[in-house]
């Protein structure tokens, strides 16, 4: 039975089961998996259903300790890993099911990539209401991580635009839930990292656009205070805002940034610029693992200096939506730049009142560690949503790519303490190293999440390596079972 929450009687939203699809037991492939950061590596048994009906057959029929749904594997650490247990790949359940052009509502299966959705809806004058920094995220992953984008300060997270979703519960029932029906289950599933069951389909409210271009205003900030002031000013003016931040600059230049403020360009603006509606998509790729040394302090410093100097303060530059939102997708497999040892992405959000100070201390901590970050992004976030384990809160978020080198563990521990001291939290979709105690302090919604989780999954059938590390699911029970 689904968790309590909705006022309706149980059963009203339970959709009947399917005819059996598979003749025999579902087959899996045992393979080493990683997240996008390529660390850690864990062997999982991967199931890959090709029909929706197979999902319940796998969950109820396969002899596994636990299951975890997985999409395109763009979370960075171990959020989409289930070491020595089952992972269910949703990549073959990627069909677009309906588009109501009057209401602007798309229904699709959870395994479809956001980029594929854009390819289908942009020519019809629609855009996704929230996009992350890459096209290669599935709808299921976007909901399970309750992703945010450059418009978070204005529009909130992806889940705000989810009309409803169908969830295959650990008990094998298909339940439709929404902010109105089975609300607790909905808000536990949103940001719930795949631990409440498998998101099978979802309906998403789209955003109207008239062109595929973004009009971008660039601003340079010589230091952190200037950058934060620019964000505060821009809050009401632009739907999209983000800053690239040079995290090697120190002293008075600490936090010097290039800020990008954007909005969807109007048809007139694009016509005036004589631009064609077709957008280019770069096709570079990184065909091999870079030697570990390729991204070092000197090369990163050179890049940062160049990047900062390159940008001018200017208004109304037209940039294709692809390039504005997904700059790194142009380089396929860019994670290989960090070499075989991989990297971690560290993303924290710090509440508004002490956020500036917290960001400063995080940058100082990184700088003092001798490790460098090639890519660092700063953004102001809007109010917290309703997802029990959703990441965003009103304040500033800082994301750092840090290559795995000696001393990384110590650095991450130090950064975690700064985040805790400032009342912030770190993003589970990026995390690979947080400890359970710190996690519990960062996520006060954990109790509510766990009460839903225990009601819907009393046997702990859905789990992940991250969930066990952080104590989101009851690790001791599963460990006991497994021995």
């Amino acid at each position, binding site marked *: 039975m689904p968790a309590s929450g909705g006022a309706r009687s149980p059963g009203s939203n339970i959709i009947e089961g399917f005819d059996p699809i*598979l003749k*025999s037991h579902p*087959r899996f492939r045992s393979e080493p998996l990683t997240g996008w950061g390529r660390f850690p590596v864990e062997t999982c048994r991967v199931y890959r259903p*090709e*029909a929706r*009906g197979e999902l319940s057959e796998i969950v109820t029929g396969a002899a596994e300790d636990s299951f975890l749904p997985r999409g395109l594997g763009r979370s960075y650490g171990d959020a989409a890993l289930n070491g020595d247990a089952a992972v269910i790949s949703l990549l*073959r359940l990627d069909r*677009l*099911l309906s588009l109501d052009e009057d209401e602007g509502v798309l229904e699709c*299966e959870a395994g479809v990539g956001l980029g594929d959705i854009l390819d289908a809806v942009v020519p019809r004058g629609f855009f996704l209401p929230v996009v992350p920094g890459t096209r290669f995220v599935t709808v299921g992953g976007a909901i399970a991580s309750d992703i945010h984008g450059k418009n978070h300060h204005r529009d909130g997270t992806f889940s705000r635009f989810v009309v409803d979703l169908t969830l295959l519960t650990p008990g094998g029932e298909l339940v439709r839930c929404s902010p109105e029906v089975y609300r607790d289950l909905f808000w536990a599933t949103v940001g719930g990292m795949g631990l409440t069951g498998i998101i099978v389909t979802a309906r998403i409210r789209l955003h109207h656009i008239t062109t595929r271009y973004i009009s971008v205003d660039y601003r340079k900030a010589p230091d952190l205070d200037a950058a934060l002031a620019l964000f505060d000013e821009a809050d009401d003016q632009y739907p999209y805002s983000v800053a690239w931040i040079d995290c090697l600059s120190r002293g008075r230049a600490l936090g010097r940034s290039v800020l990008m403020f954007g909005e969807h360009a109007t048809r007139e603006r694009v016509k005036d610029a004589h631009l064609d509606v077709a957008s280019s998509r770069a096709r570079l790729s990184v065909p091999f693992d870079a030697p570990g040394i390729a991204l070092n302090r000197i090369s990163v410093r050179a890049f940062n200096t160049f990047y900062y100097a390159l940008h001018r303060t200017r208004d109304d530059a037209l940039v294709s939506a692809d390039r504005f939102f997904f700059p790194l997708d142009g380089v396929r497999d860019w994670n290989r730049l960090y070499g075989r040892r991989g990297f971690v992405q560290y993303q924290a959000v710090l509440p508004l009142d002490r956020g500036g100070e917290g960001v400063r201390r995080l940058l100082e901590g990184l700088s003092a560690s001798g490790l460098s970050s090639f890519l660092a992004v700063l953004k102001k976030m809007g109010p917290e949503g309703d997802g029990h384990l959703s990441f965003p809160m009103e304040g500033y978020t800082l994301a750092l790519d840090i290559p795995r080198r000696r001393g990384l563990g110590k650095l991450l521990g130090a950064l975690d303490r700064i985040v805790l001291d400032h009342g912030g939290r770190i993003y589970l979709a990026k995390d690979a190293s947080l400890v359970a105690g710190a996690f519990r302090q960062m996520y006060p919604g954990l109790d509510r999440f766990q009460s839903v989780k225990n009601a819907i999954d009393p046997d702990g059938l859905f789990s992940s390596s991250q969930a066990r590390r952080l104590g989101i699911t009851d690790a001791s029970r599963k460990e006991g079972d497994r021995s």
Partner: protein
Amino acid sequence: MSDAGEGVGAELGEGAGPVLIVGVTSAIAQATAAAFAAHGHDLLVTGRNPEELEAVAADLALRHRVEVEARVFDALDFEAHDGLMDAAGMGPLSGVVLALGYMGDQEEAQGDFREARRIVDTNYTACVALLEKAASILEDRGRGFICVVGSVAGDRGRQSNYLYGSAKSGLAAYLQGLRNRLHPAGVTVTTVKPGFVDTRMTYGKEGMFLVASPESVGRGIYRAARRGRSVVYLPGFWRLIMWVIRSIPEPVFKRLKL
């Protein structure tokens, strides 16, 4: 057997009538349908599982902006065969792609004739029934194409799947005859023999190698049908592999564990 030099048999292109794809819910057929849709063809698609059929049809229409009509159809329900070729408001069919396949369970079929019959009926009898209807329609019109997804398993019988293989082999011989019959009418008949493809049929099985993506095989099927080729292995190197396997003398082959 090479037929790369054959001319373009089927007059295809945007504005031509719809293409019928029977058994569209398999991964290979979905990819084939997507290749046709990407080239602007309207589609009439069938499948057994209504939920899957609806999903595939909606996806094709939304991604490729073509008209897609879906009909729930079980190839073993021979009564239902009448009327399937009638594309209703979509205009006369420009071609038919048959992607019916049932691997079945060889071991079960050895002890249970019902399973053996299901394998043979799906992979051979139902195909014959459908193709005879398609052949008459296209023959009368004097153009069009027929493209049937067979299997390399039909090239040589072996103990692990000879029921499936023999049905596919019979189908290949049937298609040779049909090709011969329809040639004067300008209707092409293509036999496609995919090797290992990354689908439910091969996923997680031991001993798979050189596994092709359904997308590349789907594009290959589209090209082969469009060019009106006779017999096509996908990917092409399977022609060589199967030549080697066919060349093993039977006294040797019967001792192998394949």
